[in-house]
């Protein structure tokens, strides 16, 4: 493996942030337009990872480890969220026989 210079690998902050922003937007749009709960969960994952990416890029830019620490936290959080979320989705599917989020709108004022 040829030696690589850290400088040559560095991605400009703007581009990294832009990517994270675009990813986040995709995630949000997916969350809003998809009605299937599984897809909504996946969209949330994308948003979480977009946020994580933003931390990594910022951390790399400032040369701080905090960004990576934060990403580890987000990873853990996402794992926990998915495990609980999937369990809920399973229960909801048993109850409603569908995964359509709009069908589960009984809780309204």
């Amino acid at each position, binding site marked *: 493996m040829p030696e690589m210079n850290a400088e040559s690998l560095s991605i400009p902050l703007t581009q990294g942030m832009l990517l994270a922003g675009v990813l986040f937007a995709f995630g949000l749009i997916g969350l*809003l337009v998809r*009605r299937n709960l599984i897809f*909504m969960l996946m969209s949330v994952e994308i948003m979480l990872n977009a946020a994580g990416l933003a931390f990594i890029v910022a951390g790399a830019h400032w040369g701080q480890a905090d960004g990576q620490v934060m990403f580890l936290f987000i990873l853990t959080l996402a794992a926990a969220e998915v495990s609980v979320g999937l369990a809920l989705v399973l229960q909801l599917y048993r109850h409603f026989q569908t995964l359509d*989020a709009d069908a589960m*709108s009984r*809780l*309204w004022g």
Partner: protein
Amino acid sequence: MLNLLWLVPTLPLLGFLALAVAGGWFSRKTIALIGVGSVGLSLAVAGLVGSAFIGLSGTADRSYDQVLWTWLQVSGFGPAIGFHLDPLSLVMMLVITLVGFLIHLYSVEYMIEDEGYRRFFAYMNLFVVAMLTLVLADNLLLLYLGWEGVGLCSYLLIGFWYRDPANGAAAQKAFIVTRLGDVALAIGLFLLFTHLGTFNIQDLMTRATEQWPVGSSLAAIAAFLLLGGAVGKSAQLPLQTWLPDAMAGPTPVSALIHAATMVTAGMYLIARTHVLYSLAPIAQTAVAMIGAGTLLLAACSALVQRDIKRVLAYSTISQIGYMFLALGVGAWGAALFHFTTHAFFKALLFLAAGAVIQSLHEEHDIYRMGGLRQALPVTFWTFLIGAASLAGFPLVTAGFYSKDWILWEAWASPLGSPWLWGVGVIGAFLTALYSFRLVFNVFFGEAKAEVGSRPGLMVEGPLIVLAAGSLIAGFLEVPRVLGDVSLFSKFVSPVLPSFEATASITTESALQIITMLAALLGIAVAYVLFLRRPALVTAMTETAWGSTLSRFWIEGWGFDRLYDTWFVRPFLWVAQANKDDLIDRVYEGLAWLIRQFFAVLHRTQTGQVRWYAAVLAAGSVVIVALVVLS
């Protein structure tokens, strides 16, 4: 022997508790036994304590304190549950237990038909407890407990026959009107405590003399506030209107509470705190004025009432007016002496009136009675003795000696004046007139109603004992001219100081002759007007003047109407206008506003989780934009 003092109020308390808790399982005989027995035992203990106390004569200050326990102890404020026995409270205690016992005994037979037999004796026992607490208390706080306790029992017993709404209204009236005075009394208590730092009556009086000079405004304010309480409880001007209506209760109640004991609590309070009144001459003058005014007004009203119990009620107001007159001129002993004799003869008159009412099937109107002399001989003779004593029939009756003492001091005391004496003498004439109006209308003339049941032994026994008391109690204190006995004034002199008479013995005898003549004249006029020439009375009341005046007096000088227009109706009007509560409107407005917000905002709660996510995102964008752009 003196340390048995705590038993005196405790025994009736046990009687009350037994009747209240377990009375439902008792037969009427057991109920009567407990009700009367507890007061009887209390009387016996009071007698023992009293004889032991009189045996104490060697000691200097002649008083006995018994502190049972301290209620609570908070930085210098430590009200004790303690009793203070001195000649003043001893006389009160003996009269309350003796008269109370006789009235309980009378009620055994009088109330036998009543379905509330147990309730009656329970309340009566509770009343005796509260009254004894009131007079024995060594501090003002415990006194106030007794004070409110008797007020409560009075309320419960006036409304004893609660099924009739009129009785309930009378009970409420009594409670509310006396409450006006009680509020003043409570404020007076706080004032005394904040300035003198104790509730103990003896300490209070010493500290008051040390800290306040004669005529100081604080002493005057405190004295006036206490006077407010006394005026309410003792049915004096201007709070006297509740007592005539209080006659809605059973007759033994009227005898015990509204004649012999509770209504004299005001007299007791002033006598107990007389040091304070000596420091505030203006308050003491007010006491004398109130007494003089009340005794005249009430005597006039008593003249024209048709209901036998209302006559006696107004007469009670009038006689307590005499006591206030005595207090106002500094004749503390005379006031207490008149309380003692009054307790005997007024209880007697009420009980005898009760016997008459019951044997005539609940007839209260004296114009529908008559000629009962033969049918009810014992009642007649005892009633006659009571009425003679009330009228102050010279030389043989107790009422004569006590009233004479008051009138003499009203003239001769440094605070007295011929005016006060004159009012007293006119009052004495009116008293004789209305008391013999009763005697002649009820017991003489032709019989107008059929006599049903005749009173039995339990009713007549107490009447005879009270009649004996109404005659001989007066010989404890006989003026200089007529034999010079001063057992009573010597006995109470350590607590209730007297003064040296300034007027000569000739003046004294002249005044006594006038008093005697006033009473005899009253009886003679009553004889002419109500027995010989009843047409004269009819003629008098048929003139325009006469009918207006008599209607005015029957209504008790229009006080009820006055209070109704000035206070009751405006209050009811305000209550009616404000029945939705103005302050509530603010909170209702708040609730309305929140409901409006809800109506708008609840549309956003659709249950659509994607919609929520969108709003969340939009909200975040707005907040971030605000943070970034500002």
